């Protein structure tokens, strides 16, 4: 009897958790289709707020910034993190686990600390050299920084899952270092690289705090725009943006999962 009660209790707990996670999201998505200008009463289904979004220059520019930031930072992180993951694999006997720890450490810090530190650093460099004035450039650098460890780990674990003799077979079958990259490593890594890209993309779109501190006047991303807009009062337009972001992140996360599960094409 007590076991049954326990199971029921756990089930209730589970449904409560899901409700707290997903109900607010569902409400946001629902009200993004509300025809009335209210966040309390749902009148009719309408795409009014989505149309309004399309006409808002500021939002479109923020959307463009978010997309540009996510794509460019993910691509850079893919190259740098990929090389790091390969290096960790090549020298796996030397116990380089601490390397990943060192890279991870700033991520465990509160984002706000990391964001402020990055900002101070960029401002300092900017004062000395005139480079790195706050804007998309500094944001890309900051995003790449927190994307790298994820990419490196995904690439590393793909390599570890491979038969080490494959690397030797490629050398044995006359592949030059360049040919090994093009004809063996990249095709073998393709699913892992796709997964890493979409994960990095999601992380970048998700980020608000670090972006906020490293952004310049012209480089507001969607989360930064929302933050600014909300201080003036919640508009149903925000619901529409939020719904679109939920969709984008869900799709990217799903693609990341699909590719990470696929072993070879």
């Amino acid at each position, binding site marked *: 009897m007590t076991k049954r009660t326990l199971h029921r209790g756990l089930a209730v707990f589970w449904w409560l958790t899901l409700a707290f996670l997903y109900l607010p999201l569902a409400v946001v998505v629902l009200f993004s289709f509300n025809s009335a200008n209210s966040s309390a009463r749902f009148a009719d289904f309408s795409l009014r707020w989505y149309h309004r979004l399309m006409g808002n220059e500021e939002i479109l520019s923020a959307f463009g910034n978010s997309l540009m930031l996510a794509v460019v930072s993910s691509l850079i992180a893919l190259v740098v993190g990929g090389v790091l993951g390969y290096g960790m694999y090549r020298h796996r006997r030397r116990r380089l686990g601490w390397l990943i720890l060192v890279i991870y450490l700033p991520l465990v810090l509160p984002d706000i600390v990391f964001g402020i530190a990055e900002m101070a650093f960029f401002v300092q460099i900017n004062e000395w050299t005139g480079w790195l004035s706050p804007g998309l450039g500094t944001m890309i650098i900051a995003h790449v920084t927190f994307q790298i460890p994820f990419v490196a780990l995904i690439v590393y674990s793909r390599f570890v899952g491979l*038969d080490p*003799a*494959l690397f*030797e*077979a*490629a*050398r*044995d*079958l*006359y*592949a*030059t270092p360049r*040919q090994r990259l093009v*004809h*063996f490593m990249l*095709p*073998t890594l*393709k699913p892992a690289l796709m997964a890493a890209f979409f994960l990095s993309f999601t992380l970048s779109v998700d980020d608000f705090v670090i972006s906020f501190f490293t952004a310049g006047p012209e480089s507001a991303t969607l989360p930064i725009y929302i933050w600014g807009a909300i201080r003036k009062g919640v508009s149903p337009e925000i619901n529409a943006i939020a719904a679109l972001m939920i969709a984008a992140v869900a799709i990217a996360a799903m693609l990341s999962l699909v590719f990470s599960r696929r*072993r*070879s*094409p």
Partner: protein
Amino acid sequence: MSETMTADIADRPGSDPAAENSARSETRRQASSIEMQGLHKRFGHDTVALDGVDLTIRAGEFFTLLGPSGCGKTTLLRILAGLEAPDAGALAVGGRDITEVPPHRRSVNTVFQSYALFPHLSVRDNLAFGLKMRGLPAAERNARVDEIAGFIQLGDLVERRVDQLSGGQRQRIALARALVCEPDVLLLDEPLSALDAGLRGQLQVELLRVQQRLGMTFVFVTHDQDEAMVMSDRIAVLNGGSIQQVGAPREVYERPVNGFVARFMGHDNLFAIRARDGRRLTTALGTLDAEDPGDGALLLIRPETLDLLPGAVEGPNHLPATVAERLYRGSHAEFRLAVGDTTLQAMVSNRGRHLPEVGETVTVTVAPEDLVTLSE
């Protein structure tokens, strides 16, 4: 090549259409000899993998590196492939020094123990990989792949995906992938060890057939002495990073140079010589006359050279014994005999004669020419 014990079981060229292909290939290919001088290899500070290996492998030979795990046979093979660099020593293939040549510029190919087929490529693309890396045009690659597929009789395997293949099929694809490159030397790293006994025997025969048709130099690594004896023209037995003995299978089996080689080749009947008077050797078994005993400290008696006579019989090289154990194996029977306070293994073929029972008193006899001594 004439020494090989196994020439009879391999197909002879001539009757088979594939023989034409092999004749064509032979004009492109030349078997190469291998010379190793003073090869040393050490891993970390205290692990000596190779401790000065000098070895010459003849052109067109099926040569086996035999030894227990950790004896250095795999390290030696990897040095031949270029996957490992020796700390000291020189390596030449076909008279050309290749000690410093990286693996992708060596005309040496390897069949890996795990087969190492590329999972992202089809079987055909796996087979063509080496040719593609060398820049052969697609049409020629395809022709060569079809040729090797006919030669190894791969049939429709060529159009499959790698994950659709069984272990035996993978093994043959891995062999074909290395052979299609027509290397001077083919290296095989325990290629049959992952297969079950039946398939293994079948592929042993196939490997021999391929090697004899192509006349290519094969260097084969195994820890299985039976496999080494079946396959090889010559065997090198390794232990602790150095070569113990090099010779034809019969030589290594019948005249092992030391206790290690003898034990590794499966011999149990080794007895310390306590006293020696000319050709009369005294061991724990008693005193035996040998024809040409050599001056080793151990006496080797091969179980198959022993004869068992019923009852107690007096005579030269006759030893009284009691049957402690009998394993009946159909074609032959194995005996564990108590002789004095030691035991002796005997193997008797089953010619329909009386096979002594456990507890029976027998007399063991051995011919003086079958007694060999060796060093510890």
